[in-house]
């Protein structure tokens, strides 16, 4: 029944069209992604400022990691990077933990069939809202609300209410601790809506029959949460943890933007800010490309290690055990067959 045309089509290989379709992406990707990535590696082995063309081997790494190396500022470089790395982790923990707790609580409430919250949609939208504002606007907003002197809203309100003395405003922007707390708070405020939506989708993916069965068996809501919701939510939790970790280690916008005056706040300097700052200190012979490159590679290594650990700890143990069992069974089966073969 096949027509001539149909049989001709059979002989055409569609594979080449496939390659043609994906070629543009790969070309662009190589030019603008792969090469810059490789070049970052190369830069990390080259010098800084006026020596930026010179090959210096692991000098940048030893200065950043151990404070020893060719320049007199090595100790300072190490100190600054260590501070930046510390800040990165402090800021990440400080916004991730409250964020996940808050999101989890809200997600459970919003998905619980027994809790009939009116205006659920409204709340979800309102809580997601901060996430659609750019960090630049958010930073400007908070700097102007929480400014360091009595001329700004929060401090002046606290003064009028008599909580703090007029001569002693809280340094929400320049203070080393207060500014970190502020950045954690803003990050949490920005991202909890997003995390909540994600966790809700995870919870809604759990079969309602499990909850019904638990209800009938007399499990209370705490038991249901810890025995059903949390274990079955694990894949989504891992996803949230990994994305948040990658985002947290690369945290840049708020720590960089949240400051008064001309320069970014050193007490909020994260590794990403460190990289940007070293890369952008004026003209070519002012910038420290080597340090910026080395710091990028170090943060990449840290992300890779932490990511692997997270995955290792959260791998599906049942599935692995089952796989092992199956393999073992297959082996035994084969051995038996062999034996059987011999006996015949």
């Amino acid at each position, binding site marked *: 029944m096949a027509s001539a045309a149909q049989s001709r*089509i059979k002989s055409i290989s569609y594979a080449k*069209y496939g390659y*043609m*379709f994906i*070629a*543009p*992406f790969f*070309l*662009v990707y190589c*030019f*603008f992604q792969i090469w810059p990535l490789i070049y970052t590696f190369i830069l990390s082995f080259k*010098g*800084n*400022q*006026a*020596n930026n063309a010179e090959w210096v081997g692991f000098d940048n790494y030893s200065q950043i990691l151990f404070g020893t190396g*060719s*320049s*007199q*500022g090595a*100790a*300072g*470089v190490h*100190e*600054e990077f260590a501070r930046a790395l510390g800040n990165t982790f402090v800021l990440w923990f400080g916004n991730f933990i409250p964020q996940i707790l808050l999101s989890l609580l809200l997600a459970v409430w919003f998905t619980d069939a027994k809790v009939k919250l009116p205006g659920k949609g409204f709340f979800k939208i309102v809580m997601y809202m901060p996430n659609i504002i750019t960090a*630049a606007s958010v930073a400007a907003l908070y700097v102007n609300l929480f*400014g*360091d*002197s009595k*001329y*700004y809203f929060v401090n002046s309100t606290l003064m009028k209410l008599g909580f703090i003395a007029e001569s002693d*405003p809280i*340094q929400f922007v*320049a203070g*080393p601790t207060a500014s970190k707390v502020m950045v954690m708070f803003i990050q949490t405020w920005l991202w909890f809506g997003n995390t909540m939506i994600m966790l809700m989708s995870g919870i809604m993916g759990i079969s309602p029959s499990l909850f019904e069965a638990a209800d009938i068996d007399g499990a209370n809501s705490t038991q249901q949460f810890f025995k059903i919701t949390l274990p079955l939510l694990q894949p989504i939790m891992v996803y949230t943890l990994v994305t948040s970790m990658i985002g947290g280690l690369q945290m840049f916008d708020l720590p960089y933007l949240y400051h*008064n*005056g*001309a*320069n970014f706040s*050193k*007490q909020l300097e994260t590794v990403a800010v460190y990289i940007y700052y070293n890369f*952008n*200190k*004026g*003209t*070519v*012979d*002012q910038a*420290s490309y*080597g*340090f910026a490159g080395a710091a990028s590679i170090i943060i990449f290594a840290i992300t890779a290690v932490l990511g692997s650990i997270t995955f290792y700890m959260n791998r599906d143990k049942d599935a692995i055990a089952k796989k092992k069992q199956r393999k073992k069974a297959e082996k035994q089966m084969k051995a038996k067959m062999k034996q059987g073969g011999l006996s015949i």
Partner: protein
Amino acid sequence: MSKLTRTLALLASIAVVSTAFVACGGGTESTTSTPAANNTASTADNAAEGGDAAAEGGDAAAEGGDASTAEGGDASGELTAGNVSLPDTDDTLTIVCWTDADLQNMFDVYANHSDAKVIYQQCGGNGSEASTQYATYLNSGDDVDLFVAEAGWILNYINDDSMSAPLESLGITTADYADAYQYTVEIGTDNNGVLKAASWQAAAGGYAYNTTLAEQYLGVTSADDMQAKISDWDKFAATAEELKTASEGKVTMAATIGGLWQAFSTAKNAAWVNGTAIQTDVAKEFTDMIKGYVDNGYVNPNVEQWTTDWTNVGLQGETLGYFYSTWCLGEGAQLEQNGGTDGNWNIVVGPQEFFWGGSWLCVSPNCNTATEASKFVKAFTTDASIMEEYALYSGDFTNNKVAMDKIVADGSNSNPLLGGQDQFAVLSEVAAGIKMSDSITKYDQNLKDTFLDTLKKNIDSDTDTIISTFTTQALADNPDLTA
């Protein structure tokens, strides 16, 4: 059918390729506009404003035509251009700056003499930002004919031939600057002795104080009396103590540590870097002094220059005065922003003759409006009559001895913000003594920012700790340097 499929596939892949590359183009564009990120909106606005202003200026020229001919008689048609060697393919002169107010004043004056189309592009909100963001802007391929650079970091740009072209390419040479303050020419000359930049101002500074507060707390009624009370740093501190007692600690003597640093450090004519070694003697001396000031409440360490607080302490009468440079004294500039328009301010020389910053016009190697650029640079850096007009219009101390001497001699300047005082009379002596050329290095902006930041954050530590913290940070930022 298969033809149709193939055509569609071809179209689709072309679309994908083109969008991919369009996206790339977008990428570079967005990186180039990153420097102006905080000002993206304002850049557009400014450009628009600039355009409007130019148009308005045109009207003004038409209206004010009589006045200017009556005054000098030699207004328009006078502008000359040098022998340019750069191209002349564009009809809009684009000047990159962060000092929009200055440029706006220049355009207002320029419109009386020329109807050329001149616009400015704001890049960076202040000198520190501009110092790093220019590099990206200049490499971006966006139109730029001239750019404005500040003393703190101009050396980075004029010593880099990919960033700046010699003024000779606009037909302007050192010989044109016989009447200029010589330090401006020395700074504008690069390591190879090529003139790369020209300044329209001599950045002499003074101490501007609030006359109402001075009378209320110190009983001072004239600028001469005020100067007598603060003519050196000991007297300055004694007056600060008197002020503190009289005002019960409500009024500080100076607004910011940054301003005090400017007054204290520049007159020492000591460079931050000698060879590759960081020099901290002046910083140490200053730290000792400032720690006393902060302990005694003569200055509030939490107030930062160029912030809302900076403005508020002046407007609310919480500080007696500011250290200002000439470019702070014009209409719309810092004196007005921080002091209001009541005219209850006066300026005096202060404890030390000092100078602060100053801006230079540099030529971009990509300049494509050479003739107009040449006319503009010549008008504002060599033409005595235009510079006089600009000084009277903007309150800026221009870089031309003839023009400034004439204004002081004629008594033709009175600044309403200073209650009619002529700031040029005060500043002209300071300007003559500026010796900045030996002391500026390309590390200045970074080291100054780092030092002041360290000082403010660690004000309770002892001097040695502050200096060593600063040195550590400075060396980390600048691997080229040594302690």
